[in-house]
């Protein structure tokens, strides 16, 4: 296993427990329908409504740049949302005339690609010479930041990425705090693990950023 692939696996472990999979090789995945949702009806009334929708690709592109302070899914000078617009369901008005706004597997795959690319650069910018405070008040390279600062940063991120205002003491932050805590633990563990490269603390914030972008509250409205 090369150093690079080890690094990839280590980062993936921050999100889910896939490290064993990296170590043990491919793991077969069952394709049957999983039982997400609980089938319980929800009373929403009978008044007219607006259909909650997935952002179109132009909205995703623009919004990603806005929440990151100008960083988009670009490789070189090529906007990847433009490069892959056909696969992403953007109409060309010859072979397709309306945008496919389904939350499809391919959309989620590309969104995740975008999130990983963008959030790495956001975290590196914040840890570099010209941070703009995306994760304020936390210093992304600080080890063991004050819990109150972490909560304040998470609350600000939730507002910026999801338009959701919660108090730093809100239980709504609990899952995000848990994610950050687990990611930080993985980062710390990498220092002690001779088989894994050191991961700077900013990778934990990068993880939070990716999760925020991949979350339905970001790409639907």
């Amino acid at each position: 296993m090369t150093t690079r692939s080890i690094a990839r696996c280590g980062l993936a472990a921050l999100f889910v427990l896939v490290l064993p999979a990296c170590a043990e090789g491919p793991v077969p995945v069952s394709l049957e329908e999983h039982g997400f949702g609980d089938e319980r009806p929800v009373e929403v009334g009978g008044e007219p409504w607006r259909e909650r929708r997935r952002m179109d690709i132009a909205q995703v592109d623009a919004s990603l740049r806005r929440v990151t302070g100008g960083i988009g899914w670009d490789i070189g000078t090529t906007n990847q949302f433009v490069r892959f617009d056909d696969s992403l369901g953007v109409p060309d008005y010859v072979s397709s005339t309306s945008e496919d706004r389904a939350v499809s597997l391919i959309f989620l795959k590309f969104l995740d690609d975008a999130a990983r690319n963008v959030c790495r650069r956001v975290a590196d910018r914040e840890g570099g010479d010209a941070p703009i405070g995306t994760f304020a008040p936390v210093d992304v390279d600080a080890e063991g930041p004050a819990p109150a600062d972490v909560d304040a940063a998470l609350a600000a991120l939730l507002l910026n990425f999801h338009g959701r205002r919660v108090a730093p003491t809100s239980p709504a932050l609990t899952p995000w705090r848990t994610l950050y805590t687990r990611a930080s633990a993985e980062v710390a563990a990498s220092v002690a693990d001779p088989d894994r490269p050191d991961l700077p603390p900013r990778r934990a914030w990068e993880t939070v950023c990716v999760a925020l972008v991949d979350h339905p509250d970001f790409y639907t409205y």
Partner: protein
Amino acid sequence: MTRPEERERGRAKLGRRARVAFGVLGGVGVIAAAALGASLLTPSPAECDEPGSCRALEPRLDDHAYLRALSLDLRGVVPTVEEYDALAGGKAPETFVDAWLGLSPGAPPPTEFAERVVSRHGALLWPNIDNVDRIFHFRRGLSRDSTTAIWDQSANDTRRTYRGAGVTCLDEPATFGADGRPQTREVDGAQREGWVEVRPYWDPSTTIKVCAFDAQRAPVSAQGRDCASRAAIGDAGCGCGTDLAWCPTSDVRKAVLASFRGDVERRIAANILEDEPYHALLTSRRAFVNGALTHYWTHQRNSYDSVPLVPESIDVAALPDVGFGDAAWQEVELPAEHAGVLTAPTYLLRFQTNRARAARFYDAFLCQPFQPPDTGIAPDDPVAAQQPDVQLRPGCNYCHAQLEPAAAHWGRWTQQGGAYLDPADFPEFQAECAACRLDTATCPERCRLHYVTRALTPADEPNLGRLRAYEFLRPEHRAYIGEGPRGLVRDGLADGRFTACATRRTAEWLVGRPLREDEEAWTRDLALRFSASDFRYRELVRAIVTSETYRRAL
């Protein structure tokens, strides 16, 4: 759909969404690892075991979520943190709506909203003509040899015209005879000349090598042909003209076709930014040109292949004097026959038959798509098959009794092209075209292209020599040809179909679903307000996004 059914559908909706969102995320597995992590973090309302961790189950959006939806629909981007903070500070969401739509005093032009409207109209106008490169003649296409970097018109027929074989010129400077023609020498059976240096119109800052025959600049050949026209194709005495002005490259073709689309996009944006009546989009004489379009109209319009835009309906002499590379757009006024985007080259080339033009208009702007009945249409029988008039032919007449008169509004705009046939030059009947039936060899091109010159059945006989648009047209429909597409817009406005459809299309765009029958009263009220505002599109959008319907998001 009844209220109870709607409610039931609403009940099922969130549960289904939860299954879809989380099922997909779960299925992605390691591909969307982060998404999976996120899905575990924030369960859907339907499965929230810790209410404090979940969003409130309230279909009516809170101010922050409402602002986010407004911003995405009206500007295409999420709000800034500062805007959220202003909201928390007491600023009403409606205040943002007025600012983003440019309706509040002193608000800047709503350029972001205009871009959203442009994007939205893509689904109505389908403005892609990238594949219609036959407005250029393939034999005029310039390309660069990758080895020698010498440019020439690389079509084999053109090379044979110049050199007697399908080869390019020699990689050496050209020499010229006393008559000014390039001198050649025989190489491998071909008469090959050298190259000359030219500053091409697409980039005058550079000098390129061009085969001397291709770089000829004479406006008229020794045979008397106009070298700027397609008539000169195949005439060895004609080249590409000064600075190669008559010959496109692949990049030039793409730039021109993209610019035609840009023209339509700017017309839509201008309608919004200048707060004009929405229907002016379909009746205005405004157009926009940049350097690429100006160059095309000035130098290349006459070298078409099979899709002509000539006789052109634009005052070429009045176009701004700009170079091909000038990206700035300038507004120009078109002749009186124009009807907004409905006669823009992009529309005419995207929909190349008058029937297609009318059908798109009926669907997009009158909400009346032409489609067969659910029961289907009867198959042709031998008697019906003899009826050449599709307005009468059983089965066909289900759509064509209405479609043919509608299509007649584009009767003076050429099909498979976008030229305008001025009545002064193309009268309804021409005897010389009727005579083509007897002598096809001498039949003028104008007759073959635009007039009925053959009668396949006795029913066709009365149409011989008539402009094609008049073929089988009822007497009561003949005026439509003179009215042009403006007549269709006028009729749609007069009977309310246009207003109702514009309202419906806009509401469906913003609420993201087809409207229901029990929402007729709402849409009728919206249409009345739209009409009372003199068809200001921004007012219509404001009325929709500030409604309770919009704010309830499921």
